[in-house]
């Protein structure tokens, strides 16, 4: 039923369309692997969403726990990115400042990413769209690792009815 048909109520009285769930697909990746984060981007999680409408949005959420094993004083800084296929569509950066004075010492970070991809496809039709969460160590003398399981979720959300 089209939106217009839904909007035309009995006896031609225009009323608001009945509400309908618009959260229509959910994908996730939560690999049970420990990743080393280095100066070269490393993929932590990846998932594919089947998008069919040009008006669909994809709501992406990512969570990463990571640790840095400091071998000397300083800061550790990691760039987290979300990609659609090969295009970076979101980034966030987190720094762990060293608060200890003995080495080596490990400190922990927890980061949450949120992005809404409002243009997942540019031509109509069912299209698998790959989303990737990756991390790059930008600063720090020591070793960075993920802790627990990184998570990337992707939800296809239809356009709002109104």
């Amino acid at each position, binding site marked *: 039923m089209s939106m217009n048909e839904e909007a035309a109520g009995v006896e031609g009285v225009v009323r*608001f369309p009945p*509400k*309908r*769930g*618009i*959260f*229509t697909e959910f994908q996730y990746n939560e690999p049970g692997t420990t990743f080393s984060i280095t100066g070269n981007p490393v993929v932590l999680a990846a998932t594919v969403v089947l998008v069919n409408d040009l008006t669909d*949005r994809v*709501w992406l*959420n990512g969570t990463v726990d990571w640790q840095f094993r400091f071998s000397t*004083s*300083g*800061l550790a*800084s990691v*760039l987290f990115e979300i990609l659609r296929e090969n295009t*970076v*569509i*979101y*980034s*966030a*950066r*987190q*720094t762990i*400042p*060293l*608060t200890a*004075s003995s080495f080596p010492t490990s400190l922990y970070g927890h*980061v*949450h*990413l*949120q*992005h*809404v991809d*409002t243009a997942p496809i540019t031509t109509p039709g069912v299209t698998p769209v790959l989303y990737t969460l990756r991390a790059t160590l930008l600063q720090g003398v020591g070793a960075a690792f993920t802790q627990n399981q990184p998570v990337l979720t992707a939800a296809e*959300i239809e356009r*709002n*009815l*109104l």
Partner: protein
Amino acid sequence: MSENPKPLDDATPQEAKSMEVLPVESGKFTQFVVDEPASFVGGIAPIALPTPPSFVTLATVSLRIDDMTDRVWLNATVGWYVDFTAPGTVQARFRLLRGTTVIYETQQVTSSTSTVPAPPPPTTVHSVAHLEHIDTTPITTPLPMIVTYVLEAQADVAGAFTGGPITLSAAEIERNVIA
């Protein structure tokens, strides 16, 4: 429960009973809006987080809410940073408002280590804050209303900025069929 339950005629008495009691499941997530003024680190010119009592508005979303039983699921993420020129700590405060009413608030601290001298250029420490809140009373009268949510920030001392990312999303969720 299946989306297409077995016809009642074909069900065992036990199944029929459960079907009479349990309605068919349907989507409850009925509206979704987002304001994302910056999607990248450094995606926008730096916005200073003002010191108390001031706040800066980072993002705003509006939904049309029609049921008093609707819930609004709010999620916000903010990348922010401090350029430390000396050891110290800075605490940022983030809050969500419905209209002008504060409905959620959180704080996040960042620091520069005392074991690192502060050479020029300054030591930049990046943080990411995540806020999540369910507004269970978005409207208090049974009339449809446009409800606006605002994400604001401040810091206890000068020197904190956001250059992105900034994301504020809001989802309208209908009441559960079975409480």
